[in-house]
């Protein structure tokens, strides 16, 4: 992975020194390994990993000769000094490197043919290029039973471990879960969890990427492919709004694994993935995946070809009648734009909306200067308002922890307890009273401040958004939106509002509804949508997975998932990035953009383009927020979309005072408690179900015991949940988990995710 830190050889403050007889320069403070790498000289390393913090010099692989210093020095922990004379390839340096490699291999099994790291193994590569080529070790090697399951997704082969401490440092210093340790010493040294339990957390899979040998390997990927069997495609994670950069490994048409990119995107995820990003790919072949088009006729369902299904859809849409189009949060920019074009041209004035949070009132905060996730590291003060970023925008957590390690003050404000609260000062607000908590904030002085704010929480409280915007403006701070929807920002950039279709459908003004990656019956306002959809006469669904919506659609056209299509997602920080197809869609499915172009052709309004790239170019030409962008400009690392006003092209948020009686409802979607995690077998042991969490005092007041079930009822709908009593959750609110498929918590919420109160009773 990203073994060496990027070095700017043109930066100010260069120091000159001599490297292998060459006069060179690098910025002061750069580690010798990084400077040498940037200057074209590779010093072999194992333990050095700049993203893990200060180097620890554990493996001694990077030995180099420095004139005037006794013995060989570790280049990974020696910063460049003016006029130092460094030799990486002298006999004595080579001798040192040979010695270290011979030593590392003494107890190393000859496992390469059965080792999943084989072919992409730094130990193999460096032995081949820098090693002595022979060993003098004839004694018996150490043996451990293998492999062990470090967790349900990580296999540990202790014989292969070279004690580089990378995994330990990740756990201790990056994820700060303090789980992994090195036990015993010398040849008996082994990696284990301190408690002896499985290594579980939100970021555990990263140790697979950073382990320089095959000691830690992925269990879902185990033995599925070799590096020469596969192609790797850089893409974007489609499971949250952070725009995490990933690499898809493709074998025989399927995603075989998801890893961090070899060259991380330092502005976004810095090469760290959440386990959801890494292991959710198995859901791409889940049993509820739609693989064949369906046409329903008089209650009979028949499978059809893609062509026939598009014909049938065109026939239904072209019948005349008032059409509504719903664009789901995972639709790409291209799909959103093509849907808008369809509505504008072929369907002459069809209503169209995105499924998501309207967010009227967020313009004040959205129009403040934006920051990237990469800017969090360098901030002096990080303020997190609302939300639950460790669960909902996971990689943000690692950035905030890093900022704290670098000395930033962290302040969290919000109604829910979450994993970043203990990192800094936690201010607990009353549900629906964020504005008051923000007004009462006493923020310390800081050179630079970054405010992270939760889209859903602030949309429900526009006063809070305004108050926060003033703070950001007054301090000259910048802001990051903790977005709720994968491509919410992309669809907003197209000018897609959220609200029109629901109102019209509820009023009986929609005859035919086209849903594109949209499942309104499993999202906020499910109950209201259910009622509104009952008034629609015909439905057409373009969707990747079966749902209550596709079950009731006249025509169902299976769509490619984000693993299988070209497209652009805009991250919550406003970064447009490209999805690239890593896998082949099932034979009966096609990318949404292709289906929408085909539909437009059938409806007699053919767009003048036939590729995703051209469709995006057309969108960029037509929408000011996307001006100047195309696939080339976006490139591998993405490009920011323009900030244009209005920033939130929205419908209206509902009433700001919570509807109904009882306790205010506070919702969170847990990282492994969403549909993606529930579809992936790899995440089976960590996935979480739906629950209602109450303070024990509330439980007592309501007469509900821990582990019992309770019926929740809001003015919108009701559901039944298991109850957990937890003292860390404050009294005066009901905490429920959204996102769990089939649990129905969404039925309690209004479609705009505005505030509601719930009555709780034993069922």
């Amino acid at each position, binding site marked *: 992975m990203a073994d060496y830190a990027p070095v700017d050889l043109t930066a100010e403050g260069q120091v000159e020194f001599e490297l292998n007889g060459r006069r060179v320069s690098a910025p002061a403070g750069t580690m010798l390994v990084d400077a040498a790498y940037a200057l074209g000289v590779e010093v072999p390393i194992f333990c050095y990993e700049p993203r893990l913090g200060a180097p620890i010099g554990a493996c001694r692989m990077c030995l180099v000769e420095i004139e005037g210093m006794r013995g060989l020095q570790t280049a990974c922990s020696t910063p460049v000094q003016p006029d130092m004379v460094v030799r990486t390839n002298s006999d004595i340096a080579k001798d040192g490197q040979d010695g270290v490699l011979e030593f590392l291999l003494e107890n190393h099994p000859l496992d*390469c*043919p*059965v080792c999943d790291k*084989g*072919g992409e193994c730094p130990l193999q590569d460096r032995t081949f290029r820098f090693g002595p080529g022979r060993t003098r070790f004839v004694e018996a090697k150490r043996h451990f039973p*293998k*492999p062990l399951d470090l967790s349900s997704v990580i296999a540990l082969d202790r014989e292969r471990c070279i004690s580089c401490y990378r995994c330990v440092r990740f756990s201790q210093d990056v994820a700060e879960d303090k789980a992994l340790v090195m036990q015993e010493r010398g040849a008996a040294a082994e990696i284990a969890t301190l408690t002896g339990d499985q290594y579980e957390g939100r970021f555990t899979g990263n140790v697979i990427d950073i382990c320089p040998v095959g000691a830690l390997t992925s269990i879902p990927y*185990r*033995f*599925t492919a*070799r590096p*020469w*069997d596969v192609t790797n495609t850089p893409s974007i994670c489609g499971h949250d709004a952070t725009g995490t950069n990933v690499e898809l490994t493709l074998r025989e048409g399927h995603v075989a694994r998801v890893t961090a990119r070899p060259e991380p995107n330092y502005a976004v995820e810095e090469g760290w993935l959440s386990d959801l990003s890494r292991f959710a790919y198995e859901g791409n072949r889940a049993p509820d995946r739609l693989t064949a088009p369906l046409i329903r006729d008089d209650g009979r369902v028949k499978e059809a070809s893609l062509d026939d299904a598009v014909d049938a859809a065109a026939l239904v849409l072209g019948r005349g009648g008032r059409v509504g189009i719903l664009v789901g949060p995972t639709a790409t920019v291209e799909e959103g734009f093509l849907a808008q074009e369809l509505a504008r041209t072929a369907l002459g004035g069809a209503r169209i909306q995105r499924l998501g949070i309207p967010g009227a009132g967020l313009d004040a905060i959205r129009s403040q200067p934006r920051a990237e996730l990469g800017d969090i590291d360098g901030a002096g003060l990080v303020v997190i308002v609302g939300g639950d970023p460790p669960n909902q925008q996971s990689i943000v957590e690692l950035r905030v922890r890093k900022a704290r390690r670098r000395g930033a003050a962290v302040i969290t404000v919000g109604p829910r307890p979450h994993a970043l609260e203990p990192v800094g000062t936690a201010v607990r607000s009353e549900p629906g009273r964020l504005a008051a908590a923000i007004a009462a904030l006493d923020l310390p002085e800081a050179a630079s401040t970054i405010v992270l704010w939760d889209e859903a929480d602030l949309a429900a409280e526009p006063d809070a958004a305004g108050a926060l915007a003033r703070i950001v403006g007054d301090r000259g701070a910048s802001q990051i939106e903790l977005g709720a929807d994968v491509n919410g920002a992309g669809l907003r950039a197209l000018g897609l509002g959220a609200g029109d279709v629901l109102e019209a459908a509820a009023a009986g003004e929609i005859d035919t509804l086209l849903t594109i990656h949209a499942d309104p019956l499993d999202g906020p306002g499910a109950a209201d949508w259910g009622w509104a959809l009952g008034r629609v006469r015909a439905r057409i669904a373009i969707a990747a997975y079966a749902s209550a919506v596709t079950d009731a659609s006249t025509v169902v056209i299976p769509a490619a998932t984000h693993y299988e299509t070209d497209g652009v997602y805009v991250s919550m920080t406003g970064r447009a990035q490209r999805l690239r197809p890593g896998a082949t869609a099932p034979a009966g499915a096609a990318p949404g953009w292709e289906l929408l172009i085909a539909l437009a052709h059938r409806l007699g309004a053919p767009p003048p383009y036939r590729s995703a790239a051209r469709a995006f170019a057309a969108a960029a030409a037509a929408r000011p927020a996307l001006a100047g962008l195309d696939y080339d400009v976006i490139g591998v690392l993405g490009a920011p979309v323009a900030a244009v006003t209005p920033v939130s092209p929205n419908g209206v948020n509902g009433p700001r005072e919570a509807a109904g009686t009882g306790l205010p409802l506070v919702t969170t979607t847990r990282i492994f408690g969403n549909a993606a995690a529930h579809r992936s077998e790899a995440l089976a042991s960590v996935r979480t179900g739906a629950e209602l969490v109450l303070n024990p005092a509330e439980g007592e007041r309501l007469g509900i015991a821990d582990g019992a079930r309770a019926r929740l009822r809001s003015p919108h709908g009701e559901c039944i949940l298991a109850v957990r009593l937890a003292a860390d959750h404050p009294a005066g609110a009901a905490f429920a988990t959204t996102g769990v498929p089939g649990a129905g918590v969404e039925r309690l919420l209004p479609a705009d995710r505005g505030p509601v109160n719930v009555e709780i009773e034993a069922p």
Partner: protein
Amino acid sequence: MGLDDSLKGFAITFRQMLRKPETIGYPERKTPVFPRFRGRHRLWTHDNGLEKCVGCSLCVAACPADCIRVVAEENTPENRVSSGERYARIYEINMARCIFCGYCEVACPFDAITLENEYEMSERTRGDLLYTKDMLLAPHPKPVPVRSEVP
């Protein structure tokens, strides 16, 4: 052209008719091959019946014709196929593309695959030229005679 020339021609023909023929009556009789002749592949098992192949795909990496497909899987106590941690669940060679270079044999760290002497592999469809693991584990049904001498 005179009678003279015709007689010359007939003389050559008659002389050839009396000589021992160079051709042999294939397929009733087969040309013996040299021991190192590279023919159809064979996958081998250990004496205890376990497959030598561990599904490492090194032969796939070595193959210049890209005609081997290996899909590996993990051995379990209930289903132990090879002696290593992994085994080849699928091992296929597309004989229509193989150029019999023998690189796969050289690449294999376990001597699991070798090129044997058999060369009679013609089939009526291309599909039949896709040799599966079961076919490769068994000796070829059409053996050929092997010369003892080394040229």
